[in-house]
Structure formats: C-alpha cells, structure tokens
C-alpha cells in the first residue's frame, strides 16, 4: 500500500481528496494546510505519492515541489490547482510534478488522474 500526503489550504478539498483516494489503496500519512507544513510532513512520513495545491500560504506549491523532489526524486506528485493556464502546468511539470489536475474537479477526474500517476509509477 503506497503512502499518500495531501497538501491543500482548504480543509474541504483535503477531505474530498482523502475520501476519493481511499478507494485506490492509498494510505494517507499526512494532511498539510500549507507548503511549509507539507515539507515537514514529507520529511517525517516519507510518502510515495503527494497531491499538491499551488496557491498556499507560508510556502507555495511550486517551491514545495522543488524541495520535496530534492529530498526524494522518486516521489510521484499530482498538482491539484485552480491555476489552470498552460504556463503554470508546464512550470509545475518542470519542477518535478508528474500530473496536473485543474480545480474544480470531480471525484472521477481525480481518480483517473491518480490512476494514471500510479500506473506510470508501476511501469517506471
């Protein structure tokens, strides 16, 4: 069972992601409300899969992705963000995310996105 961390400044979004991804056999090891908290949780819990919001207080998602990737290049990161322009998605992928899901999203869309992320990880 892969370990999952969810980083989003909205409690509602964290809950929604946790509910939806429980069905994917992921074990939730941390819920973070900002980038700094996500980085600390990552260091202690060492999740293999992360969902990451971009607009967060304290430390934004892009900086957090960069720092997490420096700690563990194998981690799989799905960005879940309202910043839905192409330039932002490309920047997130360049920094080390493997997937990008626009907000607002349905649970089915999230399931598909995380399924693709895990499939790539199994094949990679």
């Amino acid at each position, binding site marked *: 069972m892969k370990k999952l961390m969810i980083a989003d400044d*909205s409690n*509602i979004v964290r809950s*929604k992601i946790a509910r939806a991804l429980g069905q994917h056999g992921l074990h939730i090891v941390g819920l973070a409300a900002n980038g700094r908290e996500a980085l600390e949780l990552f260091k202690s819990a060492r999740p293999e899969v992360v969902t990451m919001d971009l*607009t967060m207080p304290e430390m934004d998602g892009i900086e957090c992705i960069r720092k997490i990737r420096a700690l563990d290049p194998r981690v799989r990161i799905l960005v879940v963000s*309202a910043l*839905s322009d192409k*330039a*932002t998605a490309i920047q997130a992928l360049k920094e080390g995310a493997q997937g990008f899901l626009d907000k*607002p999203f349905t*649970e089915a869309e999230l399931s598909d996105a995380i399924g693709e992320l895990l499939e790539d990880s199994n094949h990679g």
Partner: protein
Amino acid sequence: MDETQLKAFVGIVQNYFDKITGNPAEVGTPFLGEPGDLPIHDFTGVIGISGNQRGCVYFSAPALMLREILLRAGETDLSDGNLADITGEIANTIAGNARREFGSEFLISVPVVVRGSGQHITMPKDVKAYVIPLRWRKIAASLVVSVGKA
C-alpha cells in the same frame, strides 16, 4: 476589463457550480456596481489580484447556499469553519481559473474570508467593480470583479 473578460468570469462560475454540485448556476446580466453598495452576503471570500492586472475578485454567498454546496460535495461537517473554507475555495478557484483568460502573470493571493452581511469590502478606488449576480437552487449569491490593467 472588456466584455470578453467579463464573459470569461461568467463561464467560470457556471462551470464551477456544474462540476461541484451537478447543477449549473443561473447567471444574471453583469452590471456596474456602486462602490458603496456592493452585495455582501453571510460569507465573502476575497482574492487580491496583482501582476499584469490589479484589483480584487470576491465571491459572496449566504450560509444556506454554502451548506447546500457542502452537502452536494459529500461533506458532512457544516460548521461555520467549513462554510468559510468553501467560500475561500470558491473565490480561489474562480480567480485561479481566470488565468486562462488573463495569462500566468495574473497573480492571485490566498483567500481572505470575511464573515457577516454587514461587512464592507475595501475595493480599489480607481477600478470599476462589476457585479455578476447568480442563483443556484433559487438562492442568490454574487461574484464581484474589480480588475484593471496594472
């Protein structure tokens, strides 16, 4: 802000409600708001805009609508904390989605949520504020967009 940009916000609001609740919102005709008389409901999520534009975008809704949205989204905790949370998240999502229209230099702040319909939101003085009225399940709410070139 031109008509195309205003229409972009209308489309974003319709998409949000459709996707999150399964029921699209009815969006009324946008109008120019009076600075001292902008609509404020029980919860208001305010996003500051900087970069290639400046100003703010806010979403304001009554608690009744927010509770219904939470229930539709599968949430059972209907506390005021979660009503404030969903208000900020809606404002953040609408403003963030507007980058498709305004580009990646359209920078958005984290949301600030104001509680109480008697509150006043400080708007930029020299930027017009457009009110986009909406109804969802017969409940009225408002999106206010006050954005101009930096």
